[in-house]
């Protein structure tokens, strides 16, 4: 393309149940109507034979369509990162590769980029999800709000618009891309949640329990990232200290009983348990010290602050 790309739409194609080629045409129409220089990049994570040949045919006639093929399946985060590496547009749009959100919502997300740095979709449910799915979703977002202090209602929505400065600054390893709105807000970017209409073809019934278990682990890593990366010893020290104290008290009682009340130790698991707690407490404390040492010795490289503008 002759002119600079303003808008890069990235579609990470991961494990699709069925390959939806017509979605590409829909996205293409909507994006073209925006009147910006855009590119529509499909990142194929793993082999998607049918979709690939379909897209190749499309790309032959539509210069905006690009295809990036990963050598094997790496997961959605890698697909997104690869998409980001191969695109240059200042506005990055991530789009779901299956019917999730009405394509017609794209213009509103792009427009909001004038005022915000990150816009995430929030699907208006149409009652397609089961009862338990809705409960799990609510519980998940409630938990996220509880541990991080940021309330979002639909982190799983695949349609997001971001400024390039956001994606440049925030690492997207693992499954953290889901939390990009949250991480961006913590860095001081302006984030907005937009109500979007769920695709009429969406037959998505909430995630399985196993997926939610994986998400719980994500929350754990978010908690560590958000809360304790600056002062690891405060956290580790606290947990370790409590463990150590409980163990010590227990141990003291056991030893006193042995010495003065002649309660035999041999048949008491209490001794082993209490010394185990003491040991664990000390180990946690040592880990906290190691964490603190990492921060201390790298503090000069890790900028704690983010600068918006500098005058002069």
């Amino acid at each position, binding site marked *: 393309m002759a002119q600079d790309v303003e808008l890069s739409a990235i579609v990470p194609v991961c494990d699709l149940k069925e390959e939806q080629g017509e979605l590409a045409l829909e996205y293409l129409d909507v994006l073209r109507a925006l009147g910006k220089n855009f590119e529509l990049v499909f990142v194929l994570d793993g082999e998607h034979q049918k979709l690939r040949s379909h897209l190749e045919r499309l790309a032959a006639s539509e210069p905006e369509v690009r295809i990036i093929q990963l050598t094997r399946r790496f997961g959605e985060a890698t697909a997104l990162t690869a998409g980001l590496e191969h695109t240059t547009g200042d506005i990055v749009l991530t789009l779901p590769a299956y019917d999730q959100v009405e394509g017609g919502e794209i213009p509103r997300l792009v427009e909001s980029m004038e005022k915000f740095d990150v816009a995430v979709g929030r699907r208006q449910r149409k009652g397609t999800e089961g009862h338990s799915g809705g409960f799990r979703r609510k519980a998940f977002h409630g938990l996220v709000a509880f541990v991080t202090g940021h309330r979002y209602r639909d982190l799983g929505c695949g349609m997001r618009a971001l400024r390039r400065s956001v994606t440049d600054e925030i690492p997207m390893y693992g499954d953290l891309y889901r939390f990009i709105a949250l991480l961006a807000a913590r860095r001081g970017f302006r984030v907005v949640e937009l109500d979007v209409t769920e695709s009429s073809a969406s037959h998505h019934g909430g995630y399985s329990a196993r997926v939610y278990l994986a998400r719980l682990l994500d929350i754990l890593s978010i908690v560590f990232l958000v809360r304790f990366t600056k002062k690891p010893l405060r956290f580790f020290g606290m947990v370790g200290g409590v463990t150590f104290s409980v163990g010590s008290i227990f141990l003291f009682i056991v030893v006193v009983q042995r010495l003065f009340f002649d309660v035999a*130790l041999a048949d008491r698991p209490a001794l082993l348990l209490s010394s185990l707690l003491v040991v664990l407490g*000390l180990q946690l404390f*040592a880990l906290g*010290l190691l964490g603190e040492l990492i921060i201390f*010795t790298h503090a000069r*490289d890790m*900028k*704690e602050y983010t600068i918006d503008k500098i005058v002069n």
Partner: protein
Amino acid sequence: MDLSVVVPLFNEEESVGVLYESVRSVIDDLETEAEMIFIDDGSSDLTYTKASQIAERDRRLRVVKFRRNYGQTPAMAAGIDLAAGAIIVTMDGDLQNDPRDIPEFLEKIDEGFDIVVGWRFNRQDKLVSRKIPSRIANWIIGKVTGVPIKDNGCSLKAYRADVIKHVPLYSDMHRFIPAMASIAGARIAEIKVRHHARKFGESKYGLSRVYKVLLDLLTIKTIATFSARPLKWFAMLSAPFLLLSTVMIVWALTGLITYGDLSLPVAGTAVLLGALGIFLLFSGGLAELISSTGTFEVDRMPLLTAEELALSDRNRPEIDNAVEES
């Protein structure tokens, strides 16, 4: 550039104009090349707009806008990172510090001190909520770090840039800069400064509770002591456990040999303690690795100040490089 004046600002729209004027009048009188760096720490009022309007008229003023509020230490760290001056002066943006004290700080630096700390000897703040907790904190900080400074909380300080630029600054560390810098063998002076009652608004950076300061202090003290030789420190920590474990194992084995009866609790605890000792020892190894890959090496800190005497002022940047490359 000779002098950089770094001022963090948080919701100081009323003060920023007066502040600029008073700092400017001081640096105009100095016969040195100076710059001002105002850091807007994510203010929600017009602080940034007002400051940047002034910056349009005066090229010597740089205004840095944070994307959100990060706190006083990161704001100062940003100013120090961006400062081009050989001497860096930091001060509060709430007009409680008086820029007219700056020349005195510069004199002290010229006398050969690396850090000059202000002492608000007639502090104009509330007694119970601010002055007394601060007294206690200062006394403890002095005892623990061995750097007896009367007023660690005073923001008006002057630093030699090559020293302060190598001191790690994060979280609420600005209070401990003198203590940290003393690891580097920095020569620290303390001078009395004027202190004015607050003219506008409330105190923006609330008083951090003393316990938080103490926790930070403990952390810094520990880290500063062991980060130079972490393996040694961890080894010493693990020694009593390994010793105790050995004694208990010998005891248990003796029992086994003499009476043919192994005392399970003793043997079990011994193994556990031994495991802890070994864990700590290996943690020390890991710490050594972290220390050696970090950019801040406590070992090399003294070089910043130690070699200064042997070299003339013009050569100082070379020391700078030597530390950064290593």
